[in-house]
């Protein structure tokens, strides 16, 4: 049966690895993405997600170059996104070495794009990335354009529509928890995992080994993690052994030494 996945998430700004809190505050430069990816590869992570958070013509070229360099030495699936709005964008990233391409704002603006991209490149190639904020206790709302533009969509309802458009998986990210390391939005994960049939990758808030367990037990297929791996001593090796010891079905690999 399929394994639960541990996925470092890289945010790129002008080709540099960066990290914020709640999308905009507290910018930190977190190193060279290719070097960091190699370290994670040695740690035996299952996939990588790479998102260009301020896409421009220039940054697109840098992202392609970074993915090409990563794919020379790192042999695992890559999901790449940020500013993807045309079939040519998808094609360019797949050719550079991406296995899946993540679509966010353009999916909201033009939902038919998800269907077109899935039909052209295969459902498994298209991940829809959804960022949301809580609006009071009971409601949440989708944001696009890197958290800048509010749209009147419930994240789970929107995810279900994307599933109808044949996306291969959903990357669901809480803006409120991004970079806080205070734990995932478990209520949302429960709800989304219960209703979705495609795999659910969750993002935003992981700061401890227990947080990752909580998210996987709440139904996530995969946990996306950035701050915890970048800024604490919890490495993917440590997380993987801990998850395995707690009975979660994760991959063991030669490099993770467990």
């Amino acid at each position: 049966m399929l394994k639960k996945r541990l996925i470092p998430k890289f945010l790129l700004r002008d080709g540099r690895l960066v990290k914020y809190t709640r999308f905009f505050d507290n910018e930190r430069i977190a190193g060279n993405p290719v070097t960091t990816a190699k370290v994670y590869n040695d740690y035996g992570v299952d996939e990588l997600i790479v998102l260009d958070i301020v896409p421009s013509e220039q940054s697109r070229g840098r992202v392609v170059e970074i993915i090409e360099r990563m794919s020379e030495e790192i042999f695992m699936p890559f999901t790449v996104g940020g500013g993807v709005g045309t079939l040519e964008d998808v094609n360019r990233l797949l050719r550079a070495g991406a296995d899946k391409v993540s679509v966010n704002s353009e999916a909201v603006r033009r939902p038919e794009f998800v269907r077109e991209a899935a039909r052209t490149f295969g459902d498994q190639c298209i991940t829809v990335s959804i960022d949301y904020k809580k609006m009071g206790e009971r409601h949440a709302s989708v944001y696009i354009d890197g958290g800048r533009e509010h749209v009147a969509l419930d994240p789970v309802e929107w995810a279900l529509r994307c599933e109808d458009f044949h996306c291969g998986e959903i990357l669901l990210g809480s803006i409120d928890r991004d970079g806080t390391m205070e734990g995932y939005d478990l209520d949302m994960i429960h709800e989304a995992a219960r209703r979705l049939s495609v795999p659910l990758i969750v993002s935003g808030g992981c700061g401890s080994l227990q947080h990752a367990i909580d998210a996987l037990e709440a139904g996530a297929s995969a946990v996306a993690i950035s701050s915890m791996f970048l800024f604490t001593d919890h490495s993917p090796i440590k997380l993987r052994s801990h998850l395995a010891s707690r009975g979660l079905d994760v991959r063991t690999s030669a490099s993770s030494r467990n």
Partner: protein
Amino acid sequence: MSEVAIVDYGINNVRSVRNAVDYCGFNPVVTHDAAAIADASHVILPGVGAFGDAMSNIRARGIDEILERHVREKGKPFLAICLGMQLLARTSEEHADGNAPYRGLGWFDADILRLQPNDPRLKIPHMGWNIVTRERDHAVLANIRDSNLAFYFVHSFAMHCNNQSDIVGWADYGQPVTAIVAKDNIVATQFHPEKSQDSGIELVGNFLRWNP
């Protein structure tokens, strides 16, 4: 040093396969040229895309005849990956839509059928890391421990073998999924070794050092 031919039949992305061969210390050449394939020490048939299109491209370029001669007759070591493995079957029902199934190369007495997991919660495609159970030993699995036999799969169709002795390994996805088949100088994987980290690279390296 002789080269490793990665057969180019017009599919989008062979970059990771080429990079994996290079990483293992061998010289990849992406080609559909008969002389280059004849000169190569090993041949790899990668695969992404749809069965029907792939077979038409292979026939249009005469690759079927080149492979028949150099792999089947002369015994050059040969690895087929994902759709490449499926092309070795007799037929595939992929996108046949009720018409006669597509004809493959027919190197294995096997047919390609849509995955039908017995649990409705299991999605198609079968995508992600799954464990492969070793049915028998094979040179490409040398030095890979059973606990590390996890590989990355992305597919909606799978091979059903009539000859059980062709099966080297299988995965469980609500049904047994043929994961590795082999006979003589031919080996094929349903998963992507070039995306399966250490175990995948080990498998590619084992193949490139294999002299059946």
